[in-house]
């Protein structure tokens, strides 16, 4: 079964989605979408470095993303540029440096499109292993820090006052993001990872009454998007990343449609508009 490239892509994609969904909820709640973008753009630099130093790609991407989030935390503390200007600077800086590095390495023949948009053909057995082992670790840590992380999301001062150390959980959360980006890169591509994080969470919001429920639902919506996107990609010979994102977008649009049951009440819709 695992000999079939499509089956491998499907398995890996679903694995990524199950991890990306819950993590994506926090990105939505904390308004960190642009931060996710920055980290994933840095992934390209990670790929370039891995080729240069001949080390494992996933590991290199994780290290570069994690290092970038540390730099960001330090720069923020110095209170010089505004946070979004810093993000833009680091995001495009890392992307550009990565692309330039790749261009210098003339001896490497690199499928740049596959890197940017994902490539289902590229998913190997060991990739699946990385997705599931890495993914399980990310989820385990996320569950472990869930209460303090959620409290810090609602109100950092409150969490700190009641002894939950928000700075430490924020740091752990950033490392989790870096890890997810590293394992998701092959499936959806560098440019579209943030979409896989945000879209299922945004879709799940409408149907959730508690944060935990939203996390589970976004994992499921993400998996659904991956499955339908990959089938579409196979059917119409489109790159896997964009196909998955289009499927996730479709799910989101459907979730916006007025529904007569349960919680599709007035108040919820007011919230969506604002």
């Amino acid at each position, binding site marked *: 079964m695992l000999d079939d490239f499509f089956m491998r892509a499907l398995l890996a994609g679903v694995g990524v989605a199950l991890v990306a969904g819950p993590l994506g909820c926090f990105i939505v709640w904390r308004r960190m979408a642009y931060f996710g973008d920055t980290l994933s753009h840095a992934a390209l630099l990670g790929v370039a470095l891995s080729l240069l130093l001949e080390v494992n790609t996933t590991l290199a991407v994780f290290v570069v993303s994690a290092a970038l989030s540390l730099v960001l935390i330090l720069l923020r503390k110095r209170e010089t540029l505004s946070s979004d200007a810093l993000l833009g600077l680091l995001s495009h800086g890392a992307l550009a440096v990565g692309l330039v590095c790749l261009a210098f390495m003339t001896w490497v023949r690199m499928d740049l499109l596959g890197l940017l948009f994902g490539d289902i053909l590229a998913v190997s057995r060991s990739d699946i292993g990385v997705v599931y082992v890495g993914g399980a670790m990310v989820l385990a840590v996320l569950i472990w820090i869930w209460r*303090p992380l959620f409290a810090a999301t609602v*109100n950092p001062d409150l*969490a700190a006052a009641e002894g939950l150390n928000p700075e430490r959980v924020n740091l752990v959360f950033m490392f989790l993001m870096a890890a997810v980006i590293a394992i998701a890169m092959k499936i959806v591509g560098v440019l579209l990872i943030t979409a896989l994080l945000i879209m299922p969470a945004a879709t799940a919001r409408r149907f959730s009454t*508690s944060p935990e429920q939203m996390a589970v639902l976004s994992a499921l919506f993400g998996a659904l998007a991956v499955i339908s996107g990959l089938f579409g990609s196979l059917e119409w010979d489109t790159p896997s990343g964009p196909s998955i994102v289009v499927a996730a977008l479709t799910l989101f649009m459907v979730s916006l449609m007025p529904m007569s049951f349960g919680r599709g009440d007035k108040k919820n819709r007011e919230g969506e508009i604002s």
Partner: protein
Amino acid sequence: MTSENEKSCLLRLEQAGVRRSERWLVRGVDLSVAAGEIVTLIGPNGSGKSTTAKMALGILKPTDGKAYRRPGLRIGYVPQKLMIDWTLPLNVRRFMSLTSRLDEGEAKAALERTGVSHLMQAEVRHLSGGEMQRVLLARAIARKPDLLVLDEPVQGVDYSGEIAIYDLISKLGEELGCGILMISHDLHVVMAATDQVVCLNGHVCCRGTPTAVSQSPAFRELFGHRAGAALAVYEHHHDHVHLPDGRVRHADGSVTDDCAGEHCADDHTHHHGHAEVATGSEVKTHA
């Protein structure tokens, strides 16, 4: 400080201050809260009240001086503002167990205490200002804290709700026997239940019992004379009485048509002997 005080002391700041890029937000603060004591920080906007509270809580490290908290101190915190975005599905029940596990019964009991147990399943972002403050209070006391820290606990609450909440806070303080550190930019009602007032203006400008603070020249300079007038109600100076026919009987027994004179020019407070919080409403309208 006696050894007894030392034992019951929950937290203490010694000459503590915070500096941010060459500017002192607040400096040289001495402060301590003991079990069962209510300490109120007052001061104008930007006077360093919140910064001081954050030092006391350990959210901010003092640049200068020392912050001591009793080891293992359990804190219940009511933040100044709590904005819940639409993206966050959060009902009151889940919010109650935000920082520590809490079973259904405990959550309900705490909400009952603050009078909002009917809101258990309500979405947090749909609460009104007064409901929100009551839920925040319930969450803080459900933790069975040794110390309650309240940052402007009546923000976004209308005036009659304000009195009710202060009433509730002093009642809770008595029932739970915990220390309370309260921040307010507002002076009138809050002072009634306070044991100690620390008035800040970038430094400690004056401190003491509400009465002593209200009479201190530094305080009056900072807040104007009316602030002092608003507090006079708690002193029970029955120096004149308003008779039903509108005339006024003074302390020396003489009766005049109105209360024109020294004590009415500034602190025109019709006090009728009860130092309850409710009296505050009269104070405010006259002050």
